[in-house]
Each structure stands twice: as C-alpha cells, then as structure tokens.
C-alpha cells in the first residue's frame, strides 16, 4: 500500500514516529560521538598530565644518569591501567629507561617527536603522548607514553546500547502520545467523511456534521455544513420552481381546454339555428328568435376573442391607454346599460348608486368601461335568479371608489388570493356550472393598475356573495359629466344604420362568405356594392368603376391588401388614387394597425366586425371625402 493511500491516522502516526525517530537518532548519534570525544579528551588529558609530571620529575635522573631513579619516576605510569608502556629517550634519541606491560613493546621514539616540545597521536586504538624533557630551557630528552584505547571501543558499544534503549523507549513513548494526539485530528475528519458518505448515499441534505473545534478542521466542517445548507435550499427552491412550473403548465392546459370549449359552445346554437333558418320552415317569430340567438352567441365568441387579444397585448406589454379626463359615472352607466339585457333575462336586479359630483379621473374610457363591464358581467353570471347586483361610485380620500357587489355564490377563502390570476378559475372542471375563460378579472386588474389604480375582492365565503372594489386616483378640477368617450366605439347594438343612398363601395375579400355577408350588410344599408375576390380583380374594377369607399381584406392569396392599397395610391385622383379605404382584417394587433395606416388605409376594422360599426365607419369615410371634396 502506498503512503498516500494510507488512512490519515496512520499517516499522522507515521509522521510523528518518523519525526521523533529522526530527531532521536540524531541526538543519540550526537550523544555517542560526544561521549567518545569526551572520553578521548579525558584520556588525553590524563596521559598528558602524567607525561608532564614524569618529564619534570625525571630531569635530575637524566642529568645525573640515574636509571634507577628514572625507572622509579617512570613507574608512576604503572598506576594508570590504560598505560601500555612508557619510555624515556635522551637528547640523542637513545633509550634511557622504558617499561611496558607484557606482550607490548615500549613506545618508540619517532624523529618528529624530538622536534616538538609536546604532542599526541591517536592510532589503532592507542594514544601516544610525548613530552620533551627540559633543563634550563634545553631539551635533554623525551618521554613517550602509549595508552590503551580499547576501553573506548567497549564504551562505544555501551553507549550505542544506551542510545538504542533510549531510542526504543522514546519511540514507544512517541507512538503512545501520537496515538492519542492523532485522534484529535483524525476523529473529526472521519466524522466528516462518514457524514459526507451518508449525504452522498442517501441524498439527505438535512444531515449536518458536528464541529467541535475552532481550528481548520472545524472550519472545514462548518463550510461543509454551509454547502449542505445551500444545496438543501437549492433543492427546495428547485422543487418549488418545479411545482410552480407544473402548476402553471397545468393551468395553461386547463385554460386551453376551456378556450376550445368556450369557443365551441356558442357555435352549437349558431350552427343549429342557421341550419333551421336554411330549411325555411320557421314562423316569423321563430326566425326573429333564431337571429337573436345567433347574434348573441356570435357576440359571446367575439368577446372571447377580444379577451384573448387583450391578454395577448397585456402579456406582450403592448396595451396602450388613450388617457383623458373622464367622468367615471358616465362610464359605469354605459357599462350598466350594456349589461342590463342579460340581467333582465336572468331576473337579476341591478342597483346603481352613483355619487353625483365625483371628480374626473385620467383614463381611457373604453378600457375603463371594459373593466366595469367585466365586473358587472361576472356579478350577473355568478348571481342566481332573483338575486341582485349593485354598483356604487364614491369619492374617498382623493380616490374614486367603484364597488360591484352581488348576492351570488361567493368565493372560497382559499381561492381569494388567486382571483385575479390569469387562467385561474375557481372551478376549471368540465362539469363547472359557468362558462368563460377566466381572463376577465386578470384583464380588470391589469387595466386598473395601468390606470394607477387598484382592485380588491372580498367575500364572506361560498353562498354569501362577493364585492369587488376598484380604486382610481382622481385628477384635479371640477366634477364633470361628460359623455362617455367609449360610446362611439360601442355603438348601440342592432341599431339599423343607413348610408347615403347609392354610395359606391368596393368590397375585396378572398372569402366568398365574408364577401356575401358584408356585402349584404352594406347593401341593406343602402350602398351600391361591388365585390372582388382578389387584388387584381379589384384593380380591374377600378378601370371602369371608381368607388366612393374601398373595404379590403389584408391576408389574400397572391397579392395582399398592402400591395393593393399601394398600387391604388399610385393612381391619379380621378382614377381612384385617393379613395378612402377601410382594412377589414383578422390582423387585429396594434402593430398591424400602424402598418396598415402607413400603407395607405384610412381606417382599420377587426374581424369579426359589428355591422353598425362597419356602416358607421363607411359612412364617416364617405362623408369626409364628400366634405373635403365639396369645396374642390
């Protein structure tokens, strides 16, 4: 097993023991060397001292040639057990006296010994020390002594043995200490490892490791815990986001189901009654009812499509307001007027209580009317027969407050926060009692907030009715009672309008049904109508018949409405180059409108078009032409 793969506690143990061992080894080696050196010094010191004494004491014996006395003096070396032998040489290098232990010859005189006053040499486990013998400053001989250093080797063995014992003992002590000490480091790490394994294996991010120290390991564990907390939080957020996304997706699916259902529902009476009408066996009263039913259902469908378009505008941020100072009371009255027929049909009582002198608000009358119409229509829809819907207007603290209260089925408290959310309906199941897309209230809230206002809902609970309050900021100035600006857009329904008799209208559309329907409407209103199924056909008509007003579709195969109007605008005035043109198209977005007007159309009408509106527009365009051309 490689060192790097060893467990941390083993590594720590090895580190400690290796460090201790290295230090101890050095200390032991130093100890042995020091002791050896000390011993050598001691022996040298001893022999040198003895040689000094002998060299001093032996002077007279040498001077007076007294070998007996010299032997006695030299004999002092015998007392030292390490001395193997000694000799005295005279100044000519001749031996004077000598002695040695058995088996050893007395030390010899090396020539260099005669040149130096003192010296020593270690070799072969022996120490040779020599001293010059002097009298009156003159060398008269040399004393040489040789000591035995074999004891040194024995001491060396002894020292090594001691060092080895100390070394072993110290290593054992280091092992014991580091065995205890490594736990302080390895235990928290092992704990962290176990925790990490649990987290990894069980994917349980709520587990935490214990941090018991303030050192790096404690910091590591705390950081690990922080990371776990972040992962856990992110996990929760992901789960929440996933739930939300799934919820939104579900809501959209439900909404799509509702849309297709709601769009299909009005088709059933329309198709059924138009089929009955085609059979021609209905009496006049039945015919009138059939027409009313078809008309009402077509309008319901148109309203659905308008709501969808509004939502599309809201989502894309394209909703624009045409702000003016308007009288909210008048707008409410217009909304009430348009809702009254359905309230009457359902025997729901409408109560209107408007403060007479409310100050104006800055608003788009058409959009505000849409807000109130939506609220009223909802109220009537959810109020059972015999119930009542009341609408009130009051000015409170510089704000205009409009409350729409019904005695209807109320709202579950749990659903209250979601009332204004798009695609949300309290009951989105296919067995629900009420139709609708669930867009009305989201449009209400959006438009209200676009006006700088707010809308709130309150309900005592199911079966106890509900109240919607719209609050709008007032602008300074006197109370006004202006005519609602939206009135001209929402022309009275079914009002038969006529055009100047014989007004020439050219109708261009690739759809034969549209051609026939619209053509019939205009013809019924008194116009002379010609139709063309394509742009080129329309151009041909212009060759010999210049109309007073052009009503053209935009999306057509081959050449579209844009191309047609550009070509016509290039014609001279007497050939119809300036004929007023209305675009009648399903392209109902505002950018489509801008593009149309830039291409040369004077007006834009979105399909499906209200008959009265179409007639009014045609009339207006014809009139403006007439007015502008009259002086000319």
């Amino acid at each position: 097993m490689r060192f790097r793969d060893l467990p941390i506690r083993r590594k720590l143990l090895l580190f400690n023991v290796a460090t201790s061992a290295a230090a101890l080894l050095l200390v032991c080696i130093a100890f042995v060397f020091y002791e050896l050196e000390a011993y050598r010094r001691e022996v040298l010191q001893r022999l040198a001292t003895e040689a000094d004494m002998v060299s001093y004491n032996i002077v007279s014996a040498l001077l007076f040639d007294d070998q007996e006395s010299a032997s006695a003096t030299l004999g002092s070396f015998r007392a030292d057990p390490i001395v193997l032998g000694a000799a005295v040489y005279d100044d000519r290098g001749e031996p004077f006296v000598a002695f040695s232990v058995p088996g050893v010859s007395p030390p010899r005189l090396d020539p260099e010994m005669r040149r130096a006053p003192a010296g020593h040499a270690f070799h072969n486990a022996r120490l040779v020390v020599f001293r010059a013998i002097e009298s009156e400053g003159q060398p008269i001989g040399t004393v040489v002594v040789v000591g035995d250093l074999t004891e040194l080797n024995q001491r060396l063995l002894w020292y090594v043995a001691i060092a080895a014992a100390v070394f072993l003992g110290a290593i054992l002590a280091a092992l014991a200490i580091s065995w205890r000490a490594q736990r302080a480091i390895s235990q928290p790490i092992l704990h962290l490892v176990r925790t990490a394994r649990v987290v990894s294996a069980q994917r349980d991010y709520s587990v935490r490791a214990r941090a018991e120290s303030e050192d790096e390991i404690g910091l590591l564990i705390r950081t690990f815990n922080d990371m776990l907390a972040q992962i856990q939080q992110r996990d929760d957020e992901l789960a929440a986001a996933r739930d939300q996304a799934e919820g939104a997706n579900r809501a959209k699916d439900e909404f799509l189901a509702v849309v297709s259902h709601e769009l299909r529902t009005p088709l059933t009476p329309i198709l059924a009654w138009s089929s009955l009408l085609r059979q021609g066996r209905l009496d006049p009263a039945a015919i009138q009812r059939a027409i009313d039913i078809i008309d009402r259902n077509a309008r319901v469908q148109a309203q659905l499509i308008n709501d969808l378009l509004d939502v599309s505008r809201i989502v894309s941020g394209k909703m624009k307001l045409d702000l003016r100072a308007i009288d909210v009371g008048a707008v409410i009255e217009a909304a009430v007027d348009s809702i009254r027929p359905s309230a009457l049909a359902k025997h729901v009582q409408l109560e209107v209580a408007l403060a007479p002198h409310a100050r104006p608000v800055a608003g788009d009358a058409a959009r505000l009317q849409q807000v109130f119409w939506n609220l009223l229509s909802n109220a009537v829809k959810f109020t059972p027969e015999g119930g009542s819907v009341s609408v009130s207007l009051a000015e409170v603290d510089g704000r205009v407050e409009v409350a729409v209260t019904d005695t209807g089925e109320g709202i579950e408290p749990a659903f209250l926060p979601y009332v204004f959310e798009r695609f949300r309906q309290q009951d989105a199941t296919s067995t629900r009692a009420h139709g609708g897309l669930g867009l009305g209230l989201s449009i209400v809230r959006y438009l209200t907030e676009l006006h700088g206002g707010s809308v709130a809902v309150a309900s005592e609970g199911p079966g106890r009715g509900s109240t919607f309050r719209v609050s709008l900021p007032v602008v300074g100035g006197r109370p006004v009672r202006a005519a609602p600006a939206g009135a001209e857009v929402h022309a009275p329904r079914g009002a038969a309008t006529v055009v100047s008799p014989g007004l020439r209208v050219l109708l261009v559309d690739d759809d034969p049904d549209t051609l026939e329907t619209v053509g019939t409407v205009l013809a019924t209103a008194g116009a002379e109508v010609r139709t063309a199924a394509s742009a080129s056909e329309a151009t041909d008509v212009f060759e010999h018949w210049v109309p007073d007003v052009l009503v053209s579709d935009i999306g057509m195969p081959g050449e579209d409405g844009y191309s047609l109007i550009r070509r016509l605008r290039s014609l001279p005035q007497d050939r119809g180059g300036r004929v007023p043109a209305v675009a009648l198209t399903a392209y109902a977005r505002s950018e489509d409108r801008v593009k149309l007007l830039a291409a040369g159309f004077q007006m834009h009408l979105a399909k499906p078009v209200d008959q009265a509106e179409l007639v009014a527009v045609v009339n207006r365009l014809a009139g403006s032409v007439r007015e502008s051309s009259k002086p000319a």
Partner: protein
Amino acid sequence: MVLTGLLVLLGACSEAALGAPPQAAEEELKAAFLFNFAKYVEWPADIVAERPSIDLCVLGDDLLHDALQQTLRGKVVRDKPIGIRRLASAQGAAGCHVLFVAGAHHDDMPGIVALVQRHHVLLVGEGPEFLAHGGAIAFGVEDNRLRFDVDADAASSAGLKLSSQLLKVARHVSRRDGGS
C-alpha cells in the same frame, strides 16, 4: 645525558675489562656533574646576584679543570655564564660557587671548610672520607658508573640548600639526625 652514551660506547669498546671508567671519560663526566650540581644548589640570593658569573673552581686536579674548560665553555646556569678557575691554593676559594678539592688536598680540609662555610661555597670531592672531612658532595664509582654521596648537614652549614631532585638521585644522603 649527553655523556652517558659516550661512556657506554667507550666502556664497551675499549676499557670494559677495567674496574673504573677511563680517565678522560671520567673527568668529563665529573665536569658534567659539577655543572648539574650548580642547577640544584640554592645559594643565598646575594651570592648569585652580586657576581657576574657562576664560578666552578678546581683545586689540585688539572685534568678536571681541562675537562671543564672543554665541555662547559659558554654554558649558562640561572641566566649566568659559567666561570671556570684553577686554584693554586684554598685561599682563592672565597669567590667560588662550587669548589672541587682533589684527594691530595684532604689534609687542608679543616681550613678549607672554615673558609667555604663563610663564603657559601659548595664543596665537592672524592671518596667517602671526603664527607668525613666536612665536604658536601663526594663522587664515587659503583658498578662502573659515576655516582655521588651527599652530606646535607655540610651543605646547610655553608648556607646552601640542595634540591630534593638532587638528593633523589644521590647514592647516599647523610644528615645529622642519621637519616639517608
């Protein structure tokens, strides 16, 4: 010692059969001993300080005088040069530090002893009887080697101190208390 080897060499080569060392070698040895004695004798301080040299005097032994002249010329003891004199009579001994008296003058010893005791002279002679006459150191030959005996009392009577180193190598040391 310088002359020991010579002595051994000579003794081995020529005069080995004789009971005494050859004359020339013996005189030289004695000369060396006289010189060495001067190293181990302590005179009263003024005796050394007032005089320019350490004087070795010989009475009645011209051979020894010659040997001294030959072997000790230019030598120094206690930072003073060695002076060598031959005395015609004991009267000249007053200025000597060491006086060798040959056996022929043993009869004059009482006068000499009285003189040298006053003038702190180390009295060296030959034979055991020389000490009996009042000398301090007497040469003697033993086992073919030159040795010497010391009368410590005679030396101290002359106001001289003999080094223990000297006494250690003497063959016999006599004292008044009878110790040796």
